[in-house]
């Protein structure tokens, strides 16, 4: 998978998993409240049963004539009776709760308060309580946890399968496009080289036509063609070739590339002032060379003869400043984004800066382009640290 593809894949995964999980959690919330009600209903039912039992006993006791009255104690439960003025009468515990008909939970006890009428033994309120069925609550939570984990597994699996499924046609399209570019560049390679070689030969054999305007235009056009061709090759390579990330001596490589461009600069009588400090970068060698080549060739291309280009490389940044034609303020914004809209009428930077931007984005470098019309352009790349 390409980095960009990976990113959108993970983004998709995250959104899918998050939203589905949210749905599951909402569902679980409703189930939880429902189940909680059920547990509480069960507890209430039990308490009600016990309270009926106690009431029955109270009635019997009320009618009893024996000297000693045994308070009905029921295992697992507590109960107490209060008179109509809410005075505690008797019970096997003495709860401190508001005497209001109904049920509620206080601490770890589940209470049921019932009004008693007629008031057997003077009881106006009967309070029955039992320990909350902690086991039932724990089981419910356990159930929910297991369900959540299970759905999480299912969701992630589905997400991965779906993601792969959706990405497949996309991948195929990209591969198709790549193959097309590969074929096209391959097919273009031979004719372009033929043209360029033959122009050289033609100039060799016809020295008197060397300065011919038409011939020069043909030559320039074919060089431009060659550049586009190499840019397209880069696009293809950028996608398919695995990057070989290593620690590079950027200063050495920059010197090499400057040497390579020296003849071109000389032919335009351009001065190149370079300040190169030792600089190590962790990246693919091809990418670094492409970066340097694009920036240097742009600077040479857009600087008129007899002017100068200043290049500074430090462990912090790379600055390439030229005294060229500059870029219009309104074009500056678009210049690096005109990937497939390379428009010769608008500055004519071709794919060069767009490729530079791609590389910078990939490695997290900060790219800054400042320019003044007819005064020059300054490109700064700050290596991320």
């Amino acid at each position, binding site marked *: 998978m390409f980095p960009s593809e990976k990113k959108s894949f993970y983004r998709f995964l995250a959104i899918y998993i998050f939203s589905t999980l949210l749905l599951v959690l909402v569902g679980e919330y409703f189930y939880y409240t429902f189940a909680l009600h059920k547990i509480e209903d069960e507890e209430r039912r039990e308490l009600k049963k016990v309270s009926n039992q106690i009431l029955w006993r109270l009635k019997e006791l009320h009618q009893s004539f024996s000297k000693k*009255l*045994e308070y009905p104690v029921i*295992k697992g439960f507590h109960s107490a009776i209060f*008179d*109509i003025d809410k*005075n505690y009468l008797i019970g096997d515990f003495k709860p401190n709760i508001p005497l209001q008909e109904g049920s509620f939970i206080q601490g770890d006890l589940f209470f049921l308060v019932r009004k008693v009428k*007629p*008031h*057997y*033994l003077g009881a106006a309120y009967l309070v029955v309580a039992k320990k909350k069925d902690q086991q039932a609550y724990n089981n419910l939570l356990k159930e929910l946890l297991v369900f959540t984990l299970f759905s999480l597994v299912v969701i992630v699996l589905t997400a991965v399968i779906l993601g792969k499924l959706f990405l497949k046609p996309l991948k195929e399209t990209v591969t198709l496009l790549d193959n097309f570019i590969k074929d096209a560049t391959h097919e273009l390679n031979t004719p372009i080289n033929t043209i360029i070689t033959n122009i050289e030969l033609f100039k060799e054999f016809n020295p008197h036509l060397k300065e011919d305007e038409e011939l020069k235009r043909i030559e320039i056009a074919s060089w431009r063609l060659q550049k586009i061709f190499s840019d397209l090759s880069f696009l293809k390579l950028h996608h398919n070739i695995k990057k070989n990330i290593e620690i590079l001596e950027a200063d050495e490589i920059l010197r090499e590339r400057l040497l390579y461009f020296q003849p071109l600069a000389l032919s335009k009588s351009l001065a190149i002032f370079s300040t190169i400090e030792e600089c190590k970068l962790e990246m693919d060698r091809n990418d670094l060379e492409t970066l340097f080549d694009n920036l240097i060739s742009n600077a040479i291309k857009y600087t008129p003869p007899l002017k100068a280009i200043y290049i500074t490389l430090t462990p912090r940044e790379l600055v390439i400043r030229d005294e060229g034609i500059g870029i219009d303020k309104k074009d500056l914004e678009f210049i690096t984004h005109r990937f497939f809209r390379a428009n010769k009428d608008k500055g004519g930077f071709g794919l060069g800066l767009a490729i530079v931007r791609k590389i910078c984005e990939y490695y997290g470098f900060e790219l800054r382009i400042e320019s003044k019309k007819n005064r020059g352009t300054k490109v700064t790349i700050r290596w991320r640290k």
Partner: protein
Amino acid sequence: MEKITFVLLVEVIAFANALHTYCDRCHLQYIPYQMIYKRALLLYSSKRRILENLTNFLIDPSASKTILPPGLRNRFDPNEHPTFPKSVAQEAIKELIEQEDLIKRFYIPKKEE
């Protein structure tokens, strides 16, 4: 003059043992206190309300204030019940409540855990 002496006498004795003095002679025979107290409990629940209502009855007995079930009400006419001054009635009922208290007779069995 006679009347005043009577009232004073009543006052004095009233605080000694009103229930025994004024009520036993009829009640031990016809209608036991326990029955009256249980009946009162059933209807009034709290001691405060029992005291209030039974005292009211004794001050001015009437069929409308009776707590007795219809069967007993027909045998003895509540309207005919002797009338007592408030202080006597109150003291007697207090003693009745104290004497017949059911809660006192309760015990809580040991819980088998």
